[in-house]
């Protein structure tokens, strides 16, 4: 096979496009977890975002309303989680799982009327520049606004956590809610905000799938991507830049294995399809093997309820 430089560019662009939902949901969940809350409801929030975005786009015809509506839907469903875990002090794991089951069920119910309707075309930016520079142009140009946002997000998240005061507060709340509380920080409020933010990002990730990546609605269309996003957060040891790397490896191997099949590489297909999962974990474990750093970046109070006695 001839390796054409534009062909490489096209492959990289498709890898990046497939990584977008993972990056969005993971970066959202990362903030939630950094505040000490483990929300296993990512898959549920994503699917709610997917149906909300698609339904709003079909009903209102406005892409802006649909994108923000999907984020709002993610916020609303995560409010349930926040209320249960923060106000009623329920168990994070159980509540998060319930949220996923709830999300899948309710999205299927709302979605009944939206099956079999084609989506609208989502506008892309810099389309005219797509053929200017070989290799680079297809990677940089001709994508949706959500795509560019997703690739800026890990860096913004990193900056937010490391360089801003609010980021410091979030980390303090996640590491030691008692001390943070003694410093006069409203732990519950911070955690509420982080949960809702996570919900918004998951909602956006879902909307990307149903409105941009594969514009249609079918049940369970997130196909477990919420769980992969969750795994990325843990294996990246709560580091947004490593999330970006992990999401690219995962998306990359998924796509490259299809190419290997099409070329006719004689490797068992089952092994190829399992490859993205195995390699992503191995790579992230290897690049994060410094145990001191893991201890430092793991939110110490992750998944533990904080109950402040007045």
């Amino acid at each position: 096979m001839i390796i054409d430089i534009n062909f490489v560019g096209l492959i990289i662009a498709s890898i990046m496009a497939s990584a977008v939902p993972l990056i969005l949901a993971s970066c959202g969940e990362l903030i939630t977890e950094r505040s000490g809350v483990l929300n296993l409801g990512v898959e549920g929030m994503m699917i709610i975002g997917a149906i909300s975005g698609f339904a709003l786009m079909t009903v209102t015809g406005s892409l802006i309303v649909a994108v923000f509506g999907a984020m709002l839907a993610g916020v609303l469903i995560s409010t349930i989680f926040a209320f249960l875990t923060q106000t009623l002090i329920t168990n994070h794991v159980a509540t998060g799982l319930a949220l996923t089951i709830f999300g899948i069920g309710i999205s299927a119910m709302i979605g009944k009327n939206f099956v079999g309707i084609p989506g609208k075309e989502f506008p892309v930016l810099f389309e005219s520049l797509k053929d200017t520079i070989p290799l680079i142009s297809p990677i940089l140009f001709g994508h949706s606004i959500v795509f560019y946002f997703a690739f800026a997000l890990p860096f913004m998240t990193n900056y937010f956590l490391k360089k801003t005061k609010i980021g410091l507060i979030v980390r303090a709340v996640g590491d030691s809610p008692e001390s943070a509380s003694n410093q006069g920080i409203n732990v519950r409020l911070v955690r509420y905000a982080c949960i809702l933010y996570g919900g918004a990002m998951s909602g956006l990730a879902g909307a990307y799938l149903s409105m941009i990546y594969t514009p249609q609605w079918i049940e369970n269309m997130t196909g477990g991507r919420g769980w992969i996003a969750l795994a990325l957060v843990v294996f990246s040891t709560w580091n947004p830049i490593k999330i970006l790397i992990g999401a690219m490896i995962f998306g990359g191997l998924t796509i490259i294995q299809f190419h290997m099949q099409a070329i006719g590489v004689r490797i068992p297909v089952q092994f190829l399809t399992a490859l993205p999962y195995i390699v992503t974990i191995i790579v992230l474990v290897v690049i994060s093997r410094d145990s001191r750093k893991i201890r430092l970046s793991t939110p110490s109070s992750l998944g533990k309820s904080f109950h402040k006695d007045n």
Partner: protein
Amino acid sequence: MHKFLIRSFVSSLVLLFTLTVAAVAKDVKAAFVYIGPTGDHGWTYQHDVGRKAVEAAGFKTTYVEGVPESADAERVLRQLANSGHDVIFTTSFGYMNPTNKVAKEFPNVKFEHATGYKREHPNVATYAARFYEGRTILGTIAGTMTKSNVIGYVASFPIPEVIRGINSFTLAAQKVNPNIKTKIVWAFTWYDPGKEAEAAKALIDQGADVIAQHTDSTAIVQMAEKAGVYAFGQASDMDKFAPKAVLTSVENNWGPYYVDRVKAVANGTWSQKDTWHGIGDGMVVISDLDSQMPADLRSKVKKLQADLASGKVHSFTGPIYDQKGNLMVAEGKTADDGMLAGMMTYVKGVEGDIPK
């Protein structure tokens, strides 16, 4: 006024009588067991369209969706048989053993199992569609329309149904264009729009200008539309999802069969049989042919469709060789149903190996 009253009285009597008769005759309840959600817009969705046809014919129906092909299936079936259903349609291959097992316990309930071959009790019938006939048509179109001579094929799982489709498609494409290559990519899913789109994209990037699919979602035809290549709809008419890309679709049309069988239960004429219907019986439907296809191709396809329907042409007519060059079907012969049902080898011209 007087006349009007009498007339309305008589007509309401007639109406009442009709309704009563109808109620007596149609007091049959049908149940459907689905492997996926009815919202998949694919396999299960089309079965549910069939169920709605039964409902429209005046029968009561219920359905259970997302039933795993495990002990759960048995439990669901037993529950449905216990709750007064007269006929139960089990619409996935993996329900074969549970269907036969539960059928033994409920001899008065009729069981209809889709795509299976076991009929161990007199109250079990089986049915399937000859989708490969539709793929003969798709292959003919693909072989004619391709310019790169590379045709992409997104497959789901290595089972006879899928292999048969790949073979039928490739044989037809080779017949009109001996230079074509069919590149196959296994997605190992029936529907996951993201994965299907990625598989299609990989094939397109490698030069395929016509994409066929044996997975269920519309993601592939949408990807083809975006990339400016041709594609075919699966299970339902997908033209509106990709008006430029979709040349035609092969539709699964279960409604007429379901209505027939439920009526047979109502009339007491139901009997065990094995149904394998194709284009001729209307179980496999070819959607409108796109006007981008040249007129002579369209008329050729129409003729092929008619010949497949009448049985004049068979999708698997010899000589057919396997990949190693061994004769599978001799010249002038056609593959019998037994061979088709268990087909697990590629024909000559298909690239790669079947995943084990």
